[in-house]
């Protein structure tokens, strides 16, 4: 069963530090569009929710991919994109019910949360404690 970054919207302040930490870790720059976590804001007064991959048991992104670039690791449960094989068609982005898959603005390839290899940086940077590493079983 996969672990994933669980979000608690009632504690989220909308600071978007998680996005910044993620792009810092993966791309060495600050750019929310390259982050694998996205803060969705519902109104100007800001009711927010973190959109991030929950590494589904039956990943719809994987089913949707026409070139089989997405796979789920049988042991860890991690859903990942093979950057070589991905053509950037965006089918997985459309298919994900959690808005957790996106296309990297530079490479054009699909990206999702990779759990930072087991030590999620967004979780350690989220000062209000709105993100936790844990939870199993989704979709």
């Amino acid at each position, binding site marked *: 069963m996969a672990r994933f970054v669980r979000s608690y919207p009632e504690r989220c302040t909308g*600071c*978007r*530090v998680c996005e*910044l930490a993620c792009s*810092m870790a993966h*791309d060495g720059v600050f*750019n929310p569009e390259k982050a694998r976590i996205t803060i969705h804001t519902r109104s*100007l007064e*800001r009711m927010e929710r973190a959109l991030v991959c929950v590494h589904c048991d039956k990943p719809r992104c994987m089913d949707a991919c026409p070139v089989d670039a997405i796979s789920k690791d049988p042991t860890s449960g991690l859903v990942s994109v093979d950057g070589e094989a991905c053509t950037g068609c965006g089918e997985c982005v459309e298919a994900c019910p959690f808005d957790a898959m996106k296309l990297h603005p530079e490479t054009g390839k699909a990206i999702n949360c990779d759990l930072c290899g087991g030590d999620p940086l967004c979780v350690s940077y989220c000062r209000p404690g709105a993100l936790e590493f844990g939870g199993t079983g989704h979709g």
Partner: protein
Amino acid sequence: MGKKGYMGKILRVDLTAGSTEVEELSDELARKFVGANGLAIHTLYRELRPGIDPLGKENKMVFAAGPLVGTILPFISRTYVAAKSPLTGLFADATAGGFWAPELKYAGYDAVVIEGVSDRPVYLWINDGKAEIREAGHIWGKKTGEAQEVIHREVGQRRAQSVCIGPAGENLVRYAGILAGVHAAARCGLGAVMGSKRLKAITVKGSQDVEVADMEGLKEWLERNPYARFPGSGLDKGYSSRGTVMLPELFQNFGLWGTDNWRRETYDESGEGLFHSTWLKGEVKRNSCFACIATCPGVYRVPDGPYKATVTEGPEYETVYALGSMCLNPDMRAVAKMDRMCDDYGLDTISTGVTLAFAMECVEKGIITRDQLHGLDLRFGNVEAMVQTIEKIALREGIGDLLAEGTRIAARKLDRGAEYFAINTKGLEHPGHSTRGTKGMGLGFAVGTRGAHHHDGRDFEYAPNPLIDYDGDRERARGKGVMQGIITRWTAAADCMGFCHFAEKLYGNRLQQEHVDMLNLVTGLGFTLDELIGVGERVYTLERLFQVREGIDRSKDRLPERFFREAIPGGPHKGAIMTREELDLMLDEFYESHGWDRRGIPTPERLKELGLDGY
């Protein structure tokens, strides 16, 4: 280009011609002025002839983001706006929290300079480097929240960010603000400047990188600094985590809470209705600005009464003061309602509240007559009349047309001694900090670039503070000029980098090596502490030079008469008053600390030292 942190580009928009142009932000300019505030005063000092009409076609606006904005560094996300102010007639800047400035950088720019006047309502859409001037006829007249939502739908980007004016800015209310989301760059009427240009909004979105010079160094620094220091730094307590609505109770206890148009500084009989404990009854959640670890903005929903279910972010302390204690309105729910109205119409809550208090005292004294009020019962504490008047101000209807001019011009028009009740300095209405009880703040208001503003000089006199050589004696004048000299170098430099002034909770209110470290990790420009202090000095002095060119000197660094003639009547600071001798002493100290002469004018030698000769 070698420098990081910057996008390296400035967008120049000529609304008269309907054209846009991209300029480079040179390394030399970055070194000398760093960004935002520095860039703005450098540009406006050189390009605005003295004496121009702030609401005419010659005025220009600068919207900017400092070099540190868009990185993960907390407390650094300010949206910076500057122009010649229609309220003070001087150079003025205002900043907002929120999310616009970082998005401007992701869209590819450090700054946008707006020139000319459009012949029809427009908004500017900047999308990943591309800029487009678009029709805004269909949103002209709309309130700020709705206008932003319409634009974001129209551009098809739900994560776009906008700076936007409401009806007040369109109607040239002299203290109209600019809203970024629900955060206001409120002061000095820059919203009216946007209105005069028929520019409804600037909307930005992008996916470009903000790079830093030393990422490894930055990561190490983050491990050691703000995140690690958060617990126990005081940030997890007090107003950094609970909001500035903590302050009314604190200031009531100090006896330094502007009340009843500053006839008093305590609100003994009903102030409790405006305390944090009352606010908590409607607290929905806590918010942060971009990349920030503090949670000072909070969302409040009016729990009951006639304004039930009104939702607003805030109100902040200044709003609780201006629309609350100043007008003897003890009802937090009504303050929240009016806070929301000001955000919707695009009004500065401080100037709005202080102008209402002015009007109420004029009504009391018979200076504003029944005929002028058309049935409005504008007396202290009448909340319903306040609500109605705010709308009239935004729409310039009835008495609102006069009050939309701000206290200085309204008092001149009313004459008959009205000036005495107009609590402004250089035209800017006073915020909720004591002039008589905290003398350094009084000086800060008298000399402030923007007039009575608590973000040029700062109010730091509640407890001793060795960092700025302050021993804790609030009412004493001596030494306060030197103290505000240190503080203004910091506020000016901080505004160049993109800092929120609440960062002072973590890094202090004097420029220190930590500020330089952050700047260097991001930009790689290798500043020294002395150099950064020099930037603060240069920027602050060039702002002064702009004001001097518009006729400011020592004789204009004054304060409202009330603070010289009436002592604080009760409370812990009973008897405190400002004397002319005290103000003179502090002015001398302050001018000297900046290297200005006794008339408050920067000397030619000083300008040379600062590399400002030829300006």
